[in-house]
């Protein structure tokens, strides 16, 4: 695991729109890429990244539930380095 | 004794790379009494850049009229201001952010808005409106569309987030702007007249407090590297300027909103001696200019500046253009109170220096002296250059590509003009802007020729209001820099007249090519002459402005483009004029001394015509008289609508009035005009299209040339030539379809 400054761990939270909810940003990007010459692109979704050092990795999920994501409309994935 | 730093002493080559000339470098050495070190050279190179020192324009600008009974603050401060009655002053100014926007349009335009807003609240006024003037290459090109989209998004993002409405603007597409776009942002603010604050530092021993965002490496060298030299590249446009991105500043409107509230509260509570915003050249220019205005010196310790990046060198701290920062002078006993207000608004604040009586700008690093310069050398003794104007003997600009034939029918011409990018509805742009926050907006975009902003809350009774417009026309100025500039100023005032407003004052942004070239010097000199004459004729003095030079590249210069912003006052917003025709049966009339000419107009452009050498003459006194007559008629409630005839001439103005009112018109022009095309589509100053009841128009006609031409009604626009020949007849739906051609640029 990557060491953060002064102990604890470095984590990344990827937040993306829940599948089934319209994602106009993702659709726009998916349309723009072929116009720039990139073919074979599908299923584009645009979300957010939050990077942080935490002392206790167990707190990451409650952080996501409470603040970092809106669980009604977003899925999140926690990656501890 | 200036501390020896680890970096080597810079050479004249470094000075040249930073934008100074050899002679300027030698002058710096003379003023320092030695060779300048890295920090000192960086500071001189910025303060002596065109952008900061106005080396090539200052002498010309001194010829402009800047005094008048309404002027409360003239040129030289962060913004100018005029008295608007009721103990209030309106601060306003226009500025450009052309070169950064060509490199990164979103951030360039956003930080342009941020910068002009700071200039307004730096003198103690709460910003109440923004307008923007944008110019790009033809939208058939992908690069122009990219710049347009980025700039509009940037203005939208910044203006909307900070809660200042964007109430007007203008947009033009011309080939000469392809590699040098123009982004000019204007802002207005309101303050108690006697509470405006100056930027002059005062009081030996007073503290210099920097508040706002922390300082990083944004835009280092931006001022001299970008704004004082012609942009490189310009071949295919796709990669010109790519590697200049790191020097572009990034804006944060939320940070500026907090900064704005913090600044206004500090002023409200009387905690500040003086205030200055940080813009181009960051601390270097702000601190030096404050010291120069106050006739004092300053000691600044860079180690006290809150930094965002580790390990910044002293010169980096002094030249950083990190956004959303202000500098103030504070009595030591007030420091705690000042920092308390900063904390309330979640804004960083730090005392970074002191006012001294040495008249020197001394920069320290943790107490060690690292730079020592005379304030006057930095700010007031930059060499000024005389221009060497020579009228060009050959056309400077390629004729535009033709998309229309002069043999087209009047209807084809009208539809081509209405759908042309310079005339089509700007709705797809202005719908991206909040035009109503702060609850003052009485006339929104496309409701009238100028924006109208209520000054107080209207109970029952007259509601005094401000009107504001921003206007320019590069192509006409290219054809005739003197007359074209006069015409631009007149157009601005005509727009104000159409809502019933009397001009109070003017601001201007002069966008030109390289003034060291004789033909550009000629454009600039003639344009400034026209600007001065027009503002004098209209009693609308210039209270401040900006100059942007070197807007040219390998493919040539931009059209000379003076952009005029004018603020006016009307006594009763309930009577503010409107653009659209109102009710079936009302009469339509043509008012004023307009002598329509196709020269340098939009139709000539569509037909691929080369610019003429000179524009037809016009009588500025007669135009002014017509403006006054229209204004008074609007104020007296005599008119249902009033619209300035501009691009595309009478036929386009008629279409615009029909579309805005969602009602047709039947119009009959006299057959005594030798040139039908010129009568329909010719341009020039001094033409107004008005509508109203017969009686009201008759009373207007008592004071000014007025020709009744038709009637409002139906769902068609019909223009006939007496006796019975119809030049054109077209339905509203078809006009609307043509008029909405810009929507596809924002799909």
């Amino acid at each position: 695991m990557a060491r953060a400054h002064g102990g604890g761990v470095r984590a990344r939270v990827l937040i993306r729109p829940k599948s089934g909810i319209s994602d106009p940003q993702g659709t726009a990007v998916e349309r723009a890429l072929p116009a720039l010459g990139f073919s074979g692109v599908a299923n584009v979704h645009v979300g957010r990244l939050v990077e942080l050092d935490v002392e206790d990795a167990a707190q990451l999920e409650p952080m996501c539930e409470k603040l970092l994501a809106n669980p009604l409309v977003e899925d999140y994935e926690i990656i501890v380095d | 004794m200036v501390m020896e730093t680890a970096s080597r002493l810079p050479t004249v080559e470094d000075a040249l790379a930073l934008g100074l000339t050899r002679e300027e470098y030698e002058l710096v050495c003379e003023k320092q009494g030695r060779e300048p070190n890295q920090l000192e050279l960086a500071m001189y190179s910025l303060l002596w850049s065109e952008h900061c020192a106005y080396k090539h324009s200052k002498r010309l600008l001194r010829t402009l009229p800047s005094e008048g009974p309404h002027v409360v603050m003239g040129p030289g401060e962060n913004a100018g201001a005029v008295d608007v009655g009721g103990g209030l002053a309106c601060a306003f100014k226009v500025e450009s952010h052309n070169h950064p926007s060509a490199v990164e349009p979103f951030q360039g335009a956003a930080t342009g808005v941020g910068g002009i807003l700071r200039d307004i609240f730096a003198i103690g006024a709460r910003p109440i409106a923004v307008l923007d003037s944008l110019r790009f290459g033809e939208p058939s090109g992908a690069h122009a569309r990219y710049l347009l989209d980025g700039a509009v998004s940037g203005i939208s993002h910044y203006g909307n987030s900070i809660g200042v409405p964007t109430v007007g603007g203008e947009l033009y597409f011309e080939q000469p702007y392809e590699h040098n776009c123009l982004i000019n942002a204007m802002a207005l603010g309101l303050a108690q007249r006697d509470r405006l604050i100056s930027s002059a530092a005062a009081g030996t021993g007073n503290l210099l407090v920097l508040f706002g965002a922390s300082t990083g490496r944004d835009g280092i060298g931006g001022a001299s590297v970008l704004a004082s030299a012609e942009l490189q590249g310009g071949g295919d446009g796709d990669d010109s300027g790519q590697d200049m991105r790191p020097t572009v500043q990034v804006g944060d409107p939320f940070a500026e909103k907090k900064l704005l509230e913090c600044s206004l509260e500090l002023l409200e509570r009387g905690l500040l001696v003086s205030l200055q915003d940080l813009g181009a050249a960051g601390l270097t220019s702000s601190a030096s200019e404050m010291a120069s205005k106050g006739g004092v010196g300053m000691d600044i310790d860079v180690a006290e500046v809150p930094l965002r990046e580790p390990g910044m060198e002293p010169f980096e701290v002094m030249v950083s253009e990190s956004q959303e920062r202000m500098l103030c002078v504070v009595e030591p006993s007030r420091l705690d109170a000042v920092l308390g207000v900063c904390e309330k608004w979640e804004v960083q604040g730090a005392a970074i220096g002191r006012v001294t009586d040495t008249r020197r700008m001394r920069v320290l690093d943790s107490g060690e002296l690292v730079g020592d310069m005379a304030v006057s050398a930095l700010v007031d003794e930059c060499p000024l250059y005389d221009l060497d104007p020579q009228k060009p003997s050959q056309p400077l600009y390629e004729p535009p590509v033709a998309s229309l034939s002069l043999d087209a029918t009047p209807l084809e011409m009208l539809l081509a003009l209405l759908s042309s990018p310079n005339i089509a509805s700007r709705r797809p742009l202005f719908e991206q802007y909040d035009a109503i926050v702060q609850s003052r907006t009485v006339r929104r975009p496309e409701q009238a020729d100028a924006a109208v902003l209520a000054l107080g809350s209207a109970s029952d009774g007259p509601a005094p209001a401000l009107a504001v417009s921003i206007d320019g026309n590069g192509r006409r100025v290219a054809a005739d820099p003197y007359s074209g500039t006069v015409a631009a100023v007149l157009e601005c005032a005509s727009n104000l007249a159409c809502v019933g407003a009397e001009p109070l004052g003017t601001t201007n942004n002069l966008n030109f090519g390289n003034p060291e070239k004789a033909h550009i010097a000629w454009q600039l000199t003639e344009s400034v002459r026209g600007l001065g004459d027009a503002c004098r004729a209209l009693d609308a003095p210039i209270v401040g402005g900006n100059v942007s030079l070197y807007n040219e590249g390998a493919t040539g210069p931009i059209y000379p483009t003076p952009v005029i912003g004018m603020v006016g006052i009307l006594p009763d917003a309930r009577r503010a004029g409107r653009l659209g025709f109102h009710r079936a049966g009302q009469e339509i009339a043509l008012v004023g001394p307009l002598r329509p000419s196709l020269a340098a107009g939009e139709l000539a452009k569509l037909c691929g015509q080369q610019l003429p050498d000179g524009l037809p003459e016009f009588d500025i006194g007669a135009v002014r008289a017509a403006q006054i007559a229209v204004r008074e008629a609007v104020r007296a409630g005599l008119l249902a609508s009033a619209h300035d005839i501009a691009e595309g001439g009478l036929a386009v103005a008629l279409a615009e009035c029909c579309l805005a009112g969602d009602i047709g018109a039947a119009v009959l022009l006299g057959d005594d005009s030798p040139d039908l095309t010129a009568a329909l589509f010719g341009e020039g100053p001094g033409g107004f299209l008005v509508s109203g009841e017969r009686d009201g128009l008759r009373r207007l006609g008592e004071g000014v040339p007025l020709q009744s031409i038709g009637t409002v009604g139906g769902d068609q626009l019909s223009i006939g030539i007496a006796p019975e020949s119809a030049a054109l007849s077209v339905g509203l739906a078809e006009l609307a379809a043509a008029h909405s051609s810009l929507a596809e640029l924002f799909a």
Partner: protein
Amino acid sequence: MKFGVLRFPGSCDELDALAAARRVGDAELLWHGERDLRGADAIVVPGGFSYGDYLRAGAIARFSPVMESVIEFAGEGGLVLGICNGFQVLCEAHLLPGALLGNANRRFTFRQLALEVVNADTAFTRACATGEVLSVPAKHSCGRYYAEPQTLEAMEEGGQVLMRYAPAQNFNGSLRDIAGVCNEAGNVFGLMPHPEHAVDELTGSTDGLKIFQSMRLAMEGARV
């Protein structure tokens, strides 16, 4: 009757809401950092960009001290009106169901809109008639209302959909053209368009005044 209008760092339309509320009763600003609601009979959570819309619009404002008090106040039946960013804050605070997502057209859009009053039998709409069309401006980039299908069904059945965009007026892609909703108890109302910008003939329509008038009527009714 006294309105309390919240003010967060980044709020833009709080002074407009204050002025609108003052046409109908007393009103004062409530600073985000203070828990004291100062005897307000009704709370207005205004429009703007609280905390710069960082992370998600309203995500940070919902945790402010003043919002802790507003949540309690709402739990006790107090009237709460959330406008635009205020609506976003109320959804994040779970005082209202659903969420506001980015506009379908991916752009900030400002337009004068026609809104249909769906349910005139509430504290926020009783000065209107069912089916009445109000002219109110909207200006936002994240106004697309979303809730899960079963939630939407329940809301429709329960009369919680108070206002809809009239036909062809929905630029943000809100499900079922929903412009404004209330909670089950009917004391919390969130609306994307800005009624506080439709209270003065000089600057536009006056239809928005009806919402503030409704709240006053509701308060007066409650006192009887």
